[in-house]
């Protein structure tokens, strides 16, 4: 019997040592140590062993099992090790296969970023018509028909033939501010609104003027809104967009629908204020006109100006994209050339 154990052990050692992989090793483990394995069956034979030899038999059997288990575990380690040693060399510098991914237009991520910043400040997003009435685009914004401020917003008129739209009153909006009246007349304050979109102005096309451009209008109406809140909001937003080191300065301006009126200059992100062709050598770029909403605008929308006031601002989205990517020619944004789009 003793001999039988030794023979079985040797047989197992020989087979395990010659095993080629983990699967074979696992099969061998089952063949010798498994529920119906050869050693397991031997254990059952202990009753055939004479009483005085049983202890020795048991000890030998146990030692053999332990030896085989150890061998199995050593062999497994060895196989794992040799597995990694056997790998062929390959060139880490060889290029990967190119993915077929497209590119987002730069306006998309920039608008997304702007929206996230304002969502954080409690603004909701609105989307309104581009074919707009003179009323919402101008009249309600304290800019009656013959106001000279209309000069800076020369307007496209829509041929209304075949529709119920009012002739000469139907235009392409020149500013996203047109959303102010539309929202205000339908909702009681307080509210914080962000209205991005495309605008149209009758301007000859050149590197710095396009007749279609993108803006984001924002406005807040609440019980206690101050000029300092407007300054703080602009400062917060531009620093989020351009970084904490960004330098901003404010100047007075006049739009009929704000009083006081504010213009915002961002230190040129390209030359850092030294002056370059991008900022027309001023070192600063006009970026965010704003102001406290004129009481006449609130009154036109039926809002009690004794209780409520607010501020409004517009962000030149095209301008932000241009500053961010140092694009000098505005027309770049509306040229669907892959050589351009691939860069974003």
């Amino acid at each position, binding site marked *: 019997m003793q001999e039988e154990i030794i023979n079985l052990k040797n047989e197992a050692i020989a087979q395990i040592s010659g095993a080629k992989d983990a699967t074979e090793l696992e099969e061998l483990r089952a063949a010798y140590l498994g529920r119906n394995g050869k050693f397991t069956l031997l254990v059952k034979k202990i009753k055939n062993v004479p009483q005085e030899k049983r202890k020795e038999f048991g000890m030998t059997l146990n030692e053999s099992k332990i030896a085989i288990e150890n061998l199995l575990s050593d062999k497994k380690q060895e196989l794992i090790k040799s597995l990694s040693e056997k790998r062929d060399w390959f060139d880490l510098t060889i290029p990967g296969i190119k993915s077929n*991914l497209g590119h987002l237009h730069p306006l998309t991520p920039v608008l997304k970023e702007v929206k996230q910043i304002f969502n954080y400040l409690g603004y*909701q997003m609105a989307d309104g018509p581009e074919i707009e009435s003179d009323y919402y685009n101008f009249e309600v914004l304290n800019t009656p*028909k013959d106001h000279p401020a209309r000069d800076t917003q020369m307007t496209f008129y829509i041929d209304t033939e075949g529709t119920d739209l009012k002739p000469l009153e139907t235009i392409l909006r020149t500013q996203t501010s047109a959303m102010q009246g*539309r929202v205000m007349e339908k909702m009681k304050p307080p509210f914080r609104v962000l209205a991005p979109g495309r605008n149209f102005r009758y301007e000859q096309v050149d590197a710095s003027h396009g007749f279609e451009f993108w803006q984001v209008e924002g406005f807040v109406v609440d019980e206690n809104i101050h000029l300092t809140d407007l300054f703080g909001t602009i400062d917060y937003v531009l620093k989020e967009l351009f970084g904490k080191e960004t330098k901003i300065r404010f100047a*007075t301006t*006049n739009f009929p629908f704000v009083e006081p009126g*504010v213009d915002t200059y961002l230190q040129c992100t390209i030359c850092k204020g030294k002056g370059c062709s991008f900022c027309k050598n001023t070192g600063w770029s006009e970026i965010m006109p704003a102001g406290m909403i004129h009481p006449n605008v609130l009154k036109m929308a039926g809002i009690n100006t004794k209780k409520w006031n607010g501020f409004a601002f517009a962000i030149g989205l095209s301008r932000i994209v241009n500053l961010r990517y140092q694009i000098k020619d505005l027309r770049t944004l509306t040229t669907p050339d892959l050589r351009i789009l691939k860069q974003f």
Partner: protein
Amino acid sequence: MLIPLSWLKDYVDIKLPLKDLMWKMTEVGLTCETTKKVGDETILDVEVTANRPDWMSVVGVAREIAAIQGTKIKEPKIKDLPSQTAKFPIDLIPNFNLFERWSAIVIKGIEIKPSPEWLQDKIKFMGHTPINNVIDVTNYVMYELGIPMHAFDYDEIYGQEMIVQLSKGGEKFTSVDGLNYELPKNAIIIKDSERLIDLAGIKGGLNSGVKNSTKNILLHVTIDNPVLIRRASIAMGLRSDASAIYERGPDKGGTVNSLNRAVNLILDLAGGEIASKLIDLKMEKFEPKTTGLTFEKLEKILGIKIPDTEVVKILARLNLSPKKSKIGVSCRVPTYRGDIKMEEDLAEEVARLYGYNKFPMTLPTGRVNGTKIPFYFDDSLILYIKNLLVSSGYSEAKNLSLISKDLLTKFGINQENNFRIINPISLEYKYMRVSLIPSLVAAIKINPVEKLQLFEIDKVYLKVDRKAAEKYRVAGIYLGGDFRNFKTAVELILSRLNIEEYSIEFEVNKPYLHQTNSGTIKVGGSVIGEFGEINPVVLSAMEISGKVYCFEMDIETLAKLSKFKTFSPVPVNPPQIEDLTLNLPSKTRVGEVIKTIKKLESKIINVELEDIYKDSYTFRIWYQDPKKTLTNEEVEKIRKEILSSVKAKFGATIKE
């Protein structure tokens, strides 16, 4: 507006270095970003906002600089009007709706000659050519004090009468510079007893203009109706320095002072004597008006407390004569500051002179409204689709909304459906697009590549029920690949939005799509969009070679049909998977075959097209019962059902 620095210095001592001065001017609203040099002279180029006619003058700008610096301005020394020594008759017939104020005087016995050098220089600095001593003086005083004025040859005013009235339209008018115009309706004109002699506020007439032979003149300063001046000058395409001032509304209180200034200069430079009384026809007195501002309101608007004494100081620097009371200030607003009408206006005056950049910064402390705003817009679906398309190899284009008739014609689109611009910049940009496809196809021309995938998500502008309807669309074009590769993105969008029950109809009503190689995607009665091949006729008109596939889908419809998917637990029992190769008659709709197989039996959980070889199509079929492992016999039974069904419906036979 050009402001020569030396001229400015006649009225105000400039203490700041030029660069600082320019920024301080900009900060208070008198934007000055550039200068230019004419000889040794530095000329500031200032942008004057619509509310500040007073800044259309050198003295007005000097006043602002004095206010910035806290200094006093040296007003031009204007001598008293010399006494009248002759009596030339003149009769002015007013209309206060047209001229709110009309101040005039006659001077006799002048000698027209070139202006002295100092005057010529000033006119040149302003960008004009000196003409003669009288006309140069009128321009000089306009630039100095900010109110336009005009000199007439007195002897050319027939009947010694001037009548202000509105044009009827169509009148012929020759301006002082010899150009001929036909007048629009409702321009303000002045007539004498026989002739039209002046296009008020815009240009003088040739017939009554000052010539070298002129001996006697009538000088007048008027306050014209700003709206009428603006309309007429826009209608005629004639914008002058004077019309720009009138549109903004100049100093109604300053006409006599301006006249006085000009008379004294003319008497000095051209001789002559006063030959009429000073005529001053005015609708009202035009005196300073009183406006107040409470400290409480000021603090509410600004968000900070500026000390009361500081407020008073600032307003005093602006010549607003503030009188302080316990609760606020009361100001006497000079007539040249017609823009100051209410508390908010005074608050801006205080804020801008205090310095916008000295304010602390806060964020609003108000409430956030939980109610959805009107026009609320959630663009997360749009962003999601954009990302799906980018991951399918498409790049995002932004095209103009305005397109040409030529492009519409090439795409066979009937322009009746497009909104049209009455006053386009050029014919290139006259129509508003009803589809995103044409501009995307046109982009092929600027991309010298063999494979191109572009998409756009934006609005199209439709006429629906006689109204304007702006609809977001997603569209893509695909050049240089086969149809199945193109279709991947279309299916990806639909499947990721969980729109499964769609049908494809082999019918389109888009003229630019190929009649048979394109179709409509529908769910029930709603049309999601179209896809397929661009008609080669269109491509040939566009001079594009090759095959172009495209799709266009309506975002709102996609959003409406998009569903939340509910989770199905992973089945414990593995599926049985097998490939089935069928011979299909030509023109069989393989999509329908797959749909038929899928619908046959709930235990068929998926069917995919694995391979195509000639007319044999290999389908991979997944059989699975969530409750148990299917036996071979059960699978065979289902397979038989599949075969008999596709045979009956499509004439499919199993490949031997």
